[in-house]
């Protein structure tokens, strides 16, 4: 069976990214391996669940910046994370100084919001109902 093991987002600053994805979002730090040239193999995961990791990948490739600028301009998220209670997370994250491009919005089966990850991406938070 093929299953998702690793997905990645390009980040402009890996140290800042690790802080945002762990301290602010609450994910768990996983691998942190020096790859030379100041680049790290840096991953975070779901707390208490070793099955999947998100790679916080250096954004050095010249194609990354224009690609990502275009997505961010139109408000398109780079990834989606699940939450149990979006209203509570919204309040908590705003308290931590996070910027929401889109506050919690009800779309029937799902409530979504879009947050700025401070390292170049928009991340969608989604609460599935029922």
């Amino acid at each position, binding site marked *: 069976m093929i299953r998702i093991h690793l997905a990645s987002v390009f980040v402009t600053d890996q140290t800042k990214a690790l802080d945002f994805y762990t301290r602010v979002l609450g994910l768990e730090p996983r691998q942190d391996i020096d790859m030379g040239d100041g680049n790290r193999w840096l991953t975070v995961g779901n707390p208490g669940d070793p099955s999947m990791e998100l790679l916080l990948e250096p954004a050095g490739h010249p194609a990354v910046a224009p690609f990502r*600028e275009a997505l*961010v*301009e*139109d*408000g*398109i*998220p780079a990834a989606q994370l699940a939450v149990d209670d979006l209203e509570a997370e919204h309040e908590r994250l705003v308290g931590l100084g996070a*910027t929401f*491009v*889109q*506050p919690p*919005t009800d*779309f*029937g089966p799902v409530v*979504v919001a*879009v947050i*700025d990850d401070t390292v170049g991406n*928009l991340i969608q938070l989604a609460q599935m109902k029922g």
Partner: protein
Amino acid sequence: MYDALAAPARRAILDVLTARDHQSLFEITTRLLGDHDISLTRQAISQHLAVLEEAGLVSSRREGRTRLHSLDTRPLRAIARRWPDKEPE
């Protein structure tokens, strides 16, 4: 402005923008599909927004690196001035 209002898709976009100010293209696309069951490409919505902005019915500004759109109903007052509502007799 009348041309801008003539297309049903553009009127739906204006409906979407009544939900709240400062919506990204992504949010407008999502709301059109979720609230109005209208499926349009990003390019089509982008072009409709340009027409609406040209007519002064939509304003946009950058918040950080994201472009956000808001409804501006001021041009619609010209309609009410031209054809004023009659008091019922």
